[in-house]
């Protein structure tokens, strides 16, 4: 979409050369966002609820075999295919480049899920269940979604909100690195960097200018806000 001048344009850079596939981000995301537990049978049926997953692709044959990891989360597309197909505006675009999902609006057509080329939207096929006292862990900042609605990565919008409120109360803009989604916060090798793409000097903007940059399915014209940096080669950070 035409990106007008605005203060914040949230984006993420994932350096595939740093990503080790360790899965810390996946658990961080699940803990932060009250993502439901999925037992084995449900997993087998294809009802897993992870908002963030590490995809692993095999390349080559023994002994020249390589495994490549690709952390996959909502790409917060500028021209998101999921948004216009929703009949009830449950999926919409906010003016900070975020791909919003209003659970209460959602009627569960699952059209957005079909139209997402990244397959990052998950549907609540059944009500989440946490045996006592596990519900005490649930993050009070994040809604627990009921069955019948779509959900997905929000870039930890609750943290963005809090960060912006803090900044506003101090009459300033959000500082670079002040807001961290759970995945970026925990990532041991520092492969995930989050920040404001509207600020050309932010860490994320600087990384986004790397010659190693690419975005997934660029040819589909979805204009994702998640920028990957190529890994596995001998390139420098640049």
């Amino acid at each position, binding site marked *: 979409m035409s990106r007008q001048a605005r203060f914040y344009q949230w984006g993420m850079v994932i350096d595939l050369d740093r990503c080790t596939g360790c899965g810390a981000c996946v658990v961080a995301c699940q803990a932060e966002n009250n993502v439901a537990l999925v037992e084995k049978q449900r997993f087998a049926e294809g009802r897993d609820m992870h908002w963030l*997953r590490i995809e692993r692709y095999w390349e080559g044959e023994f002994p020249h075999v390589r495994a490549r990891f690709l952390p*996959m989360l909502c790409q917060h597309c500028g021209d998101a295919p999921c948004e216009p197909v929703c009949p009830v*505006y449950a999926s919409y675009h906010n003016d900070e480049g975020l791909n919003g999902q209003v659970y209460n609006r959602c009627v569960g057509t*699952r059209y957005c899920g*079909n139209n997402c080329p990244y397959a990052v939207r998950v*549907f609540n096929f059944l009500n989440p269940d946490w045996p006592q006292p596990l519900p005490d862990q649930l993050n009070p900042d994040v809604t627990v979604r009921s069955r019948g609605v779509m959900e997905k990565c929000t870039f930890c919008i609750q943290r963005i909100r809090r960060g912006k409120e803090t900044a506003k109360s101090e009459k300033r803009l959000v500082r670079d690195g002040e807001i961290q989604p759970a995945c970026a916060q925990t990532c041991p090798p520092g492969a995930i960097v989050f920040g404001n793409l509207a600020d050309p000097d932010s860490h994320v903007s600087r990384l986004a200018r790397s010659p190693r940059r690419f975005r997934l399915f660029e040819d589909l014209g979805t204009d994702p806000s998640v920028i990957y940096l190529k890994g596995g080669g001998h390139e420098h950070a640049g």
Partner: protein
Amino acid sequence: MSMPADQHYDAATANAAMLSSTRPATWRWYLLALLLGAVVACGLYAFSYQVMTGMVVTGKNRPVMWGFYITNFVFWVGLSHSGTMVSAILRLSQANWRRPILRGAEAMTVFSIMIGGLFPLIHLGRNWTFYYMIPYPSQYGLWPNFRSPLLWDMMAITTYIIGSSLFLYLGLLPDLAVARDRAGGWRRLFLSVLAMGWRGTAQQWQTFGRASTLMACLIIPVAVSVHSIVAWDFAVTLVPGWHSTIFPPYFVIGAITSGVAAVITLMIIIRKAFHLEAFLQPLHFDNLAKLLLVVTMLWSYFYFAEVFTTWYGHQPIEWEVFRFMSDKYRLLLLIMLFGNTVVPISCLLWRRVRRSIPALLVITLLINVAMFIERFLIIVPSLSHKNMPFMWGSYTPSLVESTVMAAAFSGFALLYMLFAKFFPIVAITDVREETEALRGTAVRGRARLTTLVDEE
């Protein structure tokens, strides 16, 4: 046409024959209704179970978020194209052989679009909030998103349900009067209300004729738009295998194919069930079968064009979807091609087949099975192997979904049975118009010829 010239023609006998379906029900009728009702009840139970438990009871998953319900939706909307197309096009083209079949076809349209329209609602994750999609000023201060194809669907299907019901009612109006005049008791009252005091004056008939032509003209573009919009549900997305400009005409042709086939199937059943052999003669089946032959050829051409461009372009993900489909669903694919292309084209070329009721029954049933498979093969393989290879999956319909589908078929049959019980299932006045008003004889030389008065 319907009566041999040498036989004495009696309008009262013809009326009685065409209204045979409205005679008091036999125990067999009740038994069948009970049976169908039981299946519908099972479907309702299955649906309530789904509402109470969640979509987990279906076979859907990530990435296959749509399955049997949407397949059914497309299938039933497709079926609904028969009636209107057959009856409206043939009415406009003044094909006289249309007369005995049009009522049955129009009724089929109304019932199948009603059934079809239910499926998107059954399919919702939160069915109870379906009204969020209806445009009305609400306290949310938010209207539905008219940029969503689902809203177009809703509008188109609403228009089509209303339009095809009106179309059915319009054609029914003079027949209601006939039925009224022949009925007694509560039926007479019921029919009197519906007939609205129709007498059949010259002026009424003239207006009726004009309105029928106008409605026929209007309903055809609506029908085309409905299935185009259903096709756009798929074609406007980025899903490989769906994102194709050929989809709208392809879907429309597919719809007419399954519709015409279903009309033939139904005609065969009605003919048998209500002893309408005198009115539904081999000529009608021959003509319908010719129409069917043409549309299956068109369908095959469209299918060829779609697969051929995919094959030639060989875009990795598009080709992957086709490869997966032809691998995992090979049997289904073969049945589809067999039923939609090989069998109809090779068989319907022959006049003997076209006039053989049993052969047509088999062929038309096969075509509709193949058309159902076609819808399934459009929806499921594309979703199974979408752009993210890591997230590939597959889909098997669950018991709940199959039960709901069985209930849909039973419900359709039940509605049809009830309709035939209360309303003239053959367009009485249309049929009689030809024999009584339009047909005459003229002597030319030594020949005694049948003539037809043409209005225009």
